[in-house]
């Protein structure tokens, strides 16, 4: 994972509450096999008119916000579906940090797995940032995870909080699976003494189990089969 230490960039304002992950990446893009290339799909239904023509009414399409890397938005951002495609799309589009009064739990967590910093600021500060972003073309902010502040070049500066462990992981870009694997012994030990006991895992009626030996090959319309 790409570490996050300090980032300065152009701010784009998305003035909506409760932006759900269905809006961030619509369902038709959940059929991918890789994590790459989701930038094009970000806010797809809002961002494009039919034929993937940019919708001039959508804020990210305004020339003044081209190249934005900090998304300023409202409360409960990222609610709904657990799809990690949402942070993949934000990152691939170019966003490294988000600023909002609050986030949905699963989305918030998914951001940290992808090197995106979701900053929580109180409503009043978010309101102020919306004002500044709208007033000043080219408005930029610096988000500093080391000293836990958001600031602009005209002296506006506010602290924010992040859990210390999450901060450390993001600063160092740690692979948290690697961290967990260091505790292999404890995991194995837990499996031995699990209070629910091995009995609960026993497959008692194996007749419902599908045969494992074959892989179904899916025929496609227009001929051809995938390589299974």
């Amino acid at each position, binding site marked *: 994972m790409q570490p996050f230490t300090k980032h300065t960039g152009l701010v784009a304002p998305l003035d909506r509450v409760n932006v759900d992950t269905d809006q961030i990446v619509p369902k038709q893009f959940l059929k991918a096999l890789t994590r790459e290339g989701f930038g094009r799909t970000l806010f797809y239904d809002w961002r494009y008119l039919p034929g993937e023509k940019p919708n001039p009414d959508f804020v990210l399409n305004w020339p003044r916000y081209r190249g934005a890397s900090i998304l300023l938005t409202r409360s409960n951002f990222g609610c709904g579906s657990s799809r990690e495609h949402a942070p993949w799309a934000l990152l691939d589009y170019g966003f490294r940090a988000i600023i909002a009064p609050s986030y949905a739990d699963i989305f918030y967590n998914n951001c940290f*797995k*992808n090197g995106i910093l979701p900053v929580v600021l109180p409503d009043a500060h978010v309101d102020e940032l919306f004002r500044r972003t709208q007033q000043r073309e080219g408005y930029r902010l610096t988000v500093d995870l080391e000293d836990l502040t958001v600031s602009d070049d005209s002296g506006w500066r506010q602290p924010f909080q992040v859990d210390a462990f999450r901060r450390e992981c993001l600063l160092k870009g740690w692979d*948290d699976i690697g961290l967990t694997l260091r*505790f292999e012994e404890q995991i194995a030990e837990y499996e031995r003494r699990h209070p629910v006991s091995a009995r609960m895992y026993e497959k008692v009626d194996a007749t419902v189990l599908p045969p494992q030996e074959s892989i179904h090959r899916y025929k496609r319309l227009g001929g051809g089969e995938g390589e299974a």
Partner: protein
Amino acid sequence: MTPRTMYEKIWDAHVVRESPGEPSLIYIDRHLIHEGTSPQAFAGLRAAGRKVRRPDLTFAVMDHSVPTKDRHLPLVDQVAAAQFEALERNCREHGITLFNMFSRNQGIVHIIGPELGLTQPGQTIVCGDSHTSTHGAFGTLAFGIGTSEVEHVLATQCLPQFKSKTMLVRVNGRCRPGITAKDIILSIIGRIGIAGGTGHVIEYAGEAIRALSMEGRMTVCNMSIEAGARAGMIAPDETTFAYLEGRPFLPRGKDFQVAVDYWKTIASDAGAQYDRVVELVADDIAPQVTWGTNPGMVTDVTGKVPDPASFADPVDRKAAERALEYMGLVPGTPIQEIPIDRVFIGSCTNSRLEDLRLAARVVAGKRVAPSIKQALVVPGSMVVKAQAEKEGLDKIFREAGFEWRDAGCSMCIGMNADVLPSGERSASTSNRNFEGRQGKGGRTHLVSPMMAAAAAIAGHFVDIRDWPEVRTAVQ
């Protein structure tokens, strides 16, 4: 010992490792996967040269993109086909049990888990799907995770987790006839808001919750995430044990009794403290219909489309204005005068046998209104489908003019061919009325199965409590 909540008991029983200032490492008893959110996790595993630690605790199913008819025909959707094949390959390579779209146990992941008895009280269950909260109906700590976490669980059977806050939602008294679990949970969401449960695990309690069948309890827990809570739970009781006994993945005989004895210990202790307590009066709950673009934008069927000007908070006002514009609704319109184009009975919220029985009771001997373009019944699993057919429910639906399909997520998310066209309005038993959720430009109203069935017959929303087949029968 300090009294503990059910959440705390299950948490404590699953801690592998704790260290101050770090998230706890929590053991995962069951990992459910599907075609939509797992390919990148397997790819990550492969890239790092890691293995699936416990393929025996991992179960896969195809549900999100599967066609709900003509499965024997070649697939039209090539991209979905590649995803199905990836799941087949990944499960084969790692020795994971897969219920593919031709399995007689195939179905929506949150329907088949309980149905097979994979879901058991006291367990931790995760799945790369936010409606994993469904399984909490059994007294299970179950929550949705992202793909990175899917990979984490595949590799380690554990997840680093921060402890959530707890919220008790007590629904006192009994619901009136015609009021179902869906109306209860929509009322709860309407009350606490779509972010009301953020950071919390909700425990549902009270007489109205206890009176629910397991199917109803699953409906309630399913939509916990629509209130912002990753998990919702209900203490296991005799209803739970009766549902579980004899299911394929459960122990039998004396072993089952041992399990029940353990399950009886996991309910919250008397005097356990919650961070927040919310109480509702069951008697006050009317059939619910959403009018906006999130599940918190909901009102009684006897109500009207609200006027955005009535919202005190300017942010809420703007959100309501935008929602009404998207929904094509005029403030002050009585809910019962809203005409419907399509009806969808299905999804992990409401596609179990009980849901289909209730809907069938409403449509029996009637016809879908001529103005309705499509009325779909999509059973939650092939097992539900077979059971419903045994009872003749398929005939009732077909004779009334409904389409009767194979199991899958279908029009709840519109990843297959079952899509709500732009500008059209649905009465849907699913869980999300977000913009474009059922199809770009589609307008979703969330309701209970009986309310959806009645809307199909009437062509617009109606108060199900006025119908004689409901007044006499239900609950």
